[in-house]
């Protein structure tokens, strides 16, 4: 089903990212830095969650959030422009590369973006001297999260028919998820049924898993399983949407 063609697609994305490296870098910094300043220092100074301070609490959440945003936006926006505006996707569609390879190559590029922005915030965290640890399983989880949202990005780009559709998708799906998914507060604080609703969001499980891993608690297997399930299902849907695309 999947051939080595995915690497060609991935190669093209990496080439493009290298060409606008500084744009990508600054682009992935703005949002998390604003959150860190607003919630970490501004509002968070007096807030305590459990035993730790608030900065230690929100940093893993912000990492999950930026990995999601970088991967989802990086994949969906470029693909959407390529589909609607430059039509460069047609160059790929008339070449003998399977839709699954196109999907995988794009998602892997999203993973690189997600991982990259996660590393930036980890670096900021290290500079701020937070009381957290970042091991290989932490970064592997970032990768899994970025994969799921890269796949969602492909799916969204394939299903939307205009730029407005894409903006709406971001506003109605991505933005609420960003605020509600336990990034800034623990879902345990919410009353039912909101608590269960929020557990539907994949980002919630990303935040839970990353927070547990960074604070050296027991590895949250259920959260990882949910993320993995999302990654698989979204990949299949994304591949099908590319296969069925007709411009």
């Amino acid at each position, binding site marked *: 089903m999947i051939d080595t063609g995915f690497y060609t697609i991935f190669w093209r994305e990496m080439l493009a990212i290298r060409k606008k490296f500084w744009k990508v870098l600054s682009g992935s910094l703005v949002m998390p830095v604003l959150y860190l300043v607003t919630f970490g220092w501004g509002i968070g100074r007096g807030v305590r969650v459990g035993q730790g301070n608030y900065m230690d609490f929100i940093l893993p959440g912000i990492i999950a959030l930026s990995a999601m945003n970088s991967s989802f936006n990086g994949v969906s926006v470029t693909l959407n422009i390529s589909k609607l505006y430059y*039509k460069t996707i047609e160059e790929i569609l008339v070449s003998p590369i399977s839709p699954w390879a196109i999907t995988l190559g794009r998602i892997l590029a999203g993973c690189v973006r997600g991982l990259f922005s996660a590393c930036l915030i980890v670096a900021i965290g290290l500079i701020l001297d937070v009381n957290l640890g970042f091991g290989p399983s932490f970064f592997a989880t970032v990768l899994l999260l970025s994969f799921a949202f890269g796949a969602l990005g492909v799916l969204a780009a394939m299903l939307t028919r205009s730029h407005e559709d894409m903006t709406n998708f971001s506003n109605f799906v991505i933005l609420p998820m960003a605020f509600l998914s336990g990034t800034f507060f623990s879902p345990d604080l919410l009353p039912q049924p909101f608590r269960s609703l929020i557990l539907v969001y994949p980002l919630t499980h990303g935040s839970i898993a990353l927070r547990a891993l960074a604070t050296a608690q027991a590895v949250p297997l259920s959260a990882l399983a949910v993320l993995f399930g999302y990654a698989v299902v979204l990949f299949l849907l994304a591949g099908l949407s590319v296969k069925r695309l007709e411009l």
Partner: protein
Amino acid sequence: MIRLDHLTKRFDHFLAVDRLSFEVPQGEVFGLLGPNGAGKTTSIRMLTTLASITSGQAEIAGIDVSRNPIGVKRVIGLAPQGLNLEIELTAEENLEFHGRLHRMSRHDRRARIRELLEFSELWEKRNVQVQKFSGGMKRRLLITRAIMHRPKVLFLDEPTVGLDPQIRRRVWDMILGLKAQGITILVTTHYIEEADFLCDRVGIMNRGRLVALDKPQSLKNTTGIYAVICSRMNGCPPRFFNDRDEAVRYASELEGDVTVRQTNLEDVFIALTGEAIHD
């Protein structure tokens, strides 16, 4: 090399391509001529697997387009009507990406890129971002990219649209060079001279239908090689003659501005459809 059998495309209730049937033998330059909206691009999109086929069949190099799209993609090249180059990449990177998409070896890619960029006179510009190219350079790169992987059949959708006459000549030379290499070419155009100059045979399309198909000269012969054209003001319909004296005699009977000249493909189109290609 190309075979269409009642190829049809319907968008909701609109028939964009209506039972198109013709064959193009290997090495021929075949032109699809028709006004805006005739269905030329839609036909090409079906033949190149970009659009689904509503009904009918198409074969490229003996491969069925709807049953084996990947097989078809291996043997075709497409230079679409819109310039879908990667504008952030350089000319060379565009070709490199295309070569990788078609699984050409690194060695082959490198040699072919040089050969083709020299052929299209873009070698000096190989490291320039395509964004900075002129329209004519982009068009040449687009065609160059389409032949990078040595396709057997090449589809050129309006390859000279918006180019000035001089650059247009260069693109024509390029196309004839490809024909000399034995590539089968299907080219669409709404420029009369282009169809006349480039094509071995021309299919004239109007509103999704093929209304005539023959060698340019034969099309003119059937219509009549001399055209008597009135100026717009006195509005008499054009008439065609195969005998020059007869044409002149008819013209002298008319009042106002009347021209006698050789028939061109636009006249053929008007005679067949009662409409002008350009309005």
